[in-house]
């Protein structure tokens, strides 16, 4: 072989070697980006073209990202992308991530939405279980539910209804955009045979008090038996 030919081959080798390395860079970059956990060099090695030293790939990536908004860092025995420390202020490290509403709270909220104005006792009647203390508080605090008034019935229980904030959060234009029975069924929320007992009311969040509702008024009025009682008129 002449010297020139050997040189040409060497050059070819170099080029294909550089290509393989570039490909390995892309692969490791993508794997680290998509992984939910830090990946070890051994785990990465399996996906990299044969003959490429994954340590070199990691070293190069670390270098490339050193001055960027995201850095490649060794974490927990592996490697992971992390936001550059000086940009940490962008991250909501302190802020609590939003919590998912519990199933029970969702049920209570949906009953209030469909059956409003509704009392606590009526909610429990529909659900068949007692409502844990705090469930209603969460909904009130979230700004989705409000105290409407009092039911004109023994004990004068407080009635609950939904707020404009509720419509806003759930992307509803109006409360009666909530699907009815047929639509719940059509969308697959209700399955199997329906019985006549299962009815879904047309929801109504009209802020005006109903005939059987009194204003919230004095929260300390004595309990009475419904009729007359020591209630003063307004």
């Amino acid at each position: 072989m002449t010297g020139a030919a050997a040189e040409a081959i060497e050059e070819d080798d170099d080029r294909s070697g550089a290509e393989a390395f570039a490909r390995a860079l892309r692969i490791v970059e993508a794997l680290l980006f998509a992984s939910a956990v830090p990946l070890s060099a051994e785990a990465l090695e399996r996906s990299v073209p044969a003959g490429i030293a994954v340590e070199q790939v990691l070293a190069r990536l670390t270098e490339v990202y050193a001055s960027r908004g995201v850095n490649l860092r060794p974490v927990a025995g592996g490697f992971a992308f992390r936001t550059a420390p000086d940009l940490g202020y962008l991250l909501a490290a302190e802020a609590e991530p939003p919590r998912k509403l519990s199933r029970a709270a969702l049920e209570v909220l949906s009953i209030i939405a469909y059956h409003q104005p509704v009392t606590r006792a009526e909610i429990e009647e529909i659900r068949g279980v007692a409502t844990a203390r705090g469930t209603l508080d969460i909904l009130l605090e979230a700004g989705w539910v409000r105290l409407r008034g009092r039911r004109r019935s023994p004990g004068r229980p407080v009635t609950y209804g939904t707020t404009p904030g509720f419509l806003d959060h759930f992307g509803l234009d109006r409360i009666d955009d909530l699907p009815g029975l047929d639509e719940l069924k059509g969308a697959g929320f209700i399955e199997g045979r329906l019985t006549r007992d299962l009815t879904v009311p047309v929801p109504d969040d009209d802020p005006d008090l109903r005939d059987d509702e009194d204003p919230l008024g004095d929260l300390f009025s004595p309990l009475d038996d419904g009729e007359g009682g020591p209630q003063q008129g307004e």
Partner: protein
Amino acid sequence: MTAELPFEEDAGRRADEPALVVDVDGYEGPLDLLLDLARRQKVDLHRISILALAEQYLVFVEQARALRLELAADYLVMAAWLAYLKSRLLLPEPPKGEEPSAADLAAALALRLRRLEAIRAAANKLTGRERLGQDVFARGAPEEIAAAARPVWEAELYDLLAAYAHQRQKRVQGHISVGHRVVWSLVEAREALQRLVGEAGDWTEIDGYLTRYMASHGLPPREMKATVKASALSAMLEMAREGVLDLRQDEAFAPIYVRRRSARPAALPFADKRDAP
């Protein structure tokens, strides 16, 4: 008649089965079946022969029924409508009446088929795209960003509706007491029909016969009307298939007549008119 219609071309769909074994479950409804039949005409959907298509559909349905009785109602409704359309296409157009002309009906059906085909082509293109979680991937370990101020509580409309529907249904089901259902079994229906066949050499109207039969057996006719009709119809179709009796219905919703099968082969429902010119 059947031989004229090229069911050999079924091979396109399921090559491994005898041509006559038709799996209607493989179709997404009658329009899907029509579209598939239309494609076999191997012409542009703009130049499709609706008459030929209607005939193919009717034969298809008839053959499916000859093999198995449980064709979905959707298919039968379409068959009835196509039989009607076919007769309209074959008869001379009446003077312009209130109804749309047969040509208009045929054109509307062709348009529906083209529309379904177009949306399917679009669906294929959509699924051919690079999809998230399949071809491309998002950051596996996302970090919370301060810029996106989010509420403390999170809930989707979907979750809300699912929760409502679930607990409402669960609660109501807890209260159900299943009423005792009076059912006229297929076996009973067969018995009654066999007696009828024994008596009736000539066409007998089935509803009247059943009413008399129920009365003579001391069965409450009102509560059992639905179950009697359903079981009798199933039993009739089965016995027709076995060659025990003939059925006749002159038009949709008209009374159904039965008689003992004679030597001459009889037509099945929907096939009445296919021997017309």
